[in-house]
């Protein structure tokens, strides 16, 4: 949604392509299947258009839905269109995307400018994006509008060729949201001796604004026997008091002109938002209260591997290249101050605030085919 528009270099537009994509996410009680197609075409080597269409089908009952009886089933449709224009050493990009599900509509526009300089060793990029979200709450067939959220983001990046084997980059992005920023299905809980469970629920109250800053540094190194090793680190901080650190390491190993194998490890850790608590001492304990697990202190670790096979390594007729890829990831989520109150409570011997900390694993499978023209 936010972030830099595309990853093309400023000097040359990428090849024309068509991709079909399938994904499956299973974990935390959720089962999400995704399908997507992408088409990209360039004209006179100076102008290109890219269109994507995604459909995600979500079903399951996550930890946040306390009653096992209500299983979510929803469909999200997203369409993106992106334009790129090259003039000399400058690339201009403009894109629009729209995402629609029963209770959430999001529109985004983004623009960026990339400039190659100093013998094409340096690429400087600046960009901005605007988003408009409409949030509703669904209860059976009834959909109640809850509010709107506006988003503004600004980004700047510098990519530098350091040696003939090493490339590095630094990117900064500042995002500000304003409006209805919480999830209408989430609630907070507070200690309540009058309730049989020992606790009770009340709606979340979030600040109406949020400003965040993220800085990412990356490096990629060419290993002499033809392979690439990469590392990236992102630091995140925002006005809600969340601090996030992301470290990602990757290794790419090609085999002749046919195969590319890749492995990656991602480590993430975040501190909680300053208005977050798993269990407040009483009703209306603070001005702002939240219990969304996305705002909790947590960690997650991902291990992923992918294999790409070129079934048309040198092209055939007007196809330049054809590949098929299988990508498998396993993520282990651990929460340091979010407890599983769906499966544990006074009824099975856990006092409020002493329920086990929540954790779950997710498996992601992606399969896609790409044809280059």
């Amino acid at each position, binding site marked *: 949604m936010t972030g830099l528009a595309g990853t093309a270099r400023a000097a*040359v537009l990428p090849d024309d392509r068509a991709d079909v994509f399938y994904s499956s996410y299973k974990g935390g009680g959720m089962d999400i299947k995704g399908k997507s197609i992408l088409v990209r075409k360039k004209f006179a080597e100076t102008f290109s258009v890219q269109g994507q269409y995604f459909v995600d089908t979500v079903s399951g009952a996550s930890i946040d839905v306390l009653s096992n009886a209500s299983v979510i089933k929803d469909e999200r449709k997203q369409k993106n269109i992106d334009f790129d224009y090259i003039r000399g050493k400058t690339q201009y990009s403009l894109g629009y995307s729209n995402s629609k599900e029963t209770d959430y509509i999001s529109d985004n526009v983004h623009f960026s400018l990339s400039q190659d300089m100093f*013998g094409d060793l340096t690429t400087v990029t600046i960009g901005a994006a605007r988003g408009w979200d409409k949030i509703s709450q669904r209860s059976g067939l009834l959909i109640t509008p809850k509010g709107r959220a506006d988003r503004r983001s600004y980004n700047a990046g510098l990519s530098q060729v350091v040696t003939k084997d090493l490339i590095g980059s630094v990117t900064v992005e500042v995002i500000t949201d304003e409006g209805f920023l919480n999830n209408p299905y989430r609630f907070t809980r507070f200690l309540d001796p009058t309730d049989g469970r020992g606790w009770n629920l009340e709606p979340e109250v979030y600040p109406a604004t949020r400003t965040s800053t993220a800085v990412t540094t990356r490096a990629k190194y060419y290993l002499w026997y033809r392979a690439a090793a990469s590392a990236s680190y992102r630091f995140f901080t925002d006005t809600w008091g969340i601090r996030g650190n992301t470290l990602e390491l990757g290794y790419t190993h090609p085999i002749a002109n046919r195969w590319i194998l890749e492995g990656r490890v991602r480590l993430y850790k975040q501190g909680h938002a300053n208005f977050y608590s798993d269990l407040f001492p009483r009703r209306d304990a603070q001005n702002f209260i939240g219990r969304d697990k996305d705002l909790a202190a947590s960690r997650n670790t991902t291990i992923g591997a992918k294999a790409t096979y070129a079934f048309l390594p040198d092209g055939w007729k007007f196809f330049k290249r054809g590949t098929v890829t299988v990508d498998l990831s396993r993520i282990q989520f651990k929460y340091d101050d979010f407890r599983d109150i769906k499966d544990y409570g006074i009824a099975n011997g856990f006092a409020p605030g002493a329920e086990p900390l929540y954790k779950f694993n997710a498996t992601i499978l992606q399969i896609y085919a790409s044809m280059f023209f």
Partner: protein
Amino acid sequence: MKRWNSSLIRSCALVGAIAVGATFAVAGDVSTPATGFSLNSLAGQSVALSQFKGNVVLVNFWATWCGPCQQEMPLLDQMYKKYKPAGFTLLGVNVDKEAPAVKELLSRKPVSFPVLLDPENSVSRAYHVADMPSSVIIDRKGNVRYVHRGYRPGDENEYLDRIRQLIRE
């Protein structure tokens, strides 16, 4: 203090303008003697620039890993076939570090002009190649008359204009 500041600003701006100008120079008409060189062709024969004195020569620096270079090649081939009888030669100087990729590419997309190998990049350095691809047009007397950096569709017309002009000289 004020005077020093404003002259400092002016010299910064001048230096900045030169730097920006240097970065964006895509093509230029010049006149300097062409540095001689001798390289092996793909077939293994030694070919020297001096052999072509009396002809108009276009030296094109290219690589197998460079997309715009591949786009240019068929157009350069057409140019070579058309103007060869009028005293025009085209030398494709390849800068790949290893020959097998070059042989493989040319076996799939052959060209009729001589392809010379510059794996040590000595000729690329001598000609101050600052972009890929780069084309240098040398007149019948052995002087570099036109330098073109990069390739975008339509650039071949610039080459043709210069070639026709130099053939008539």
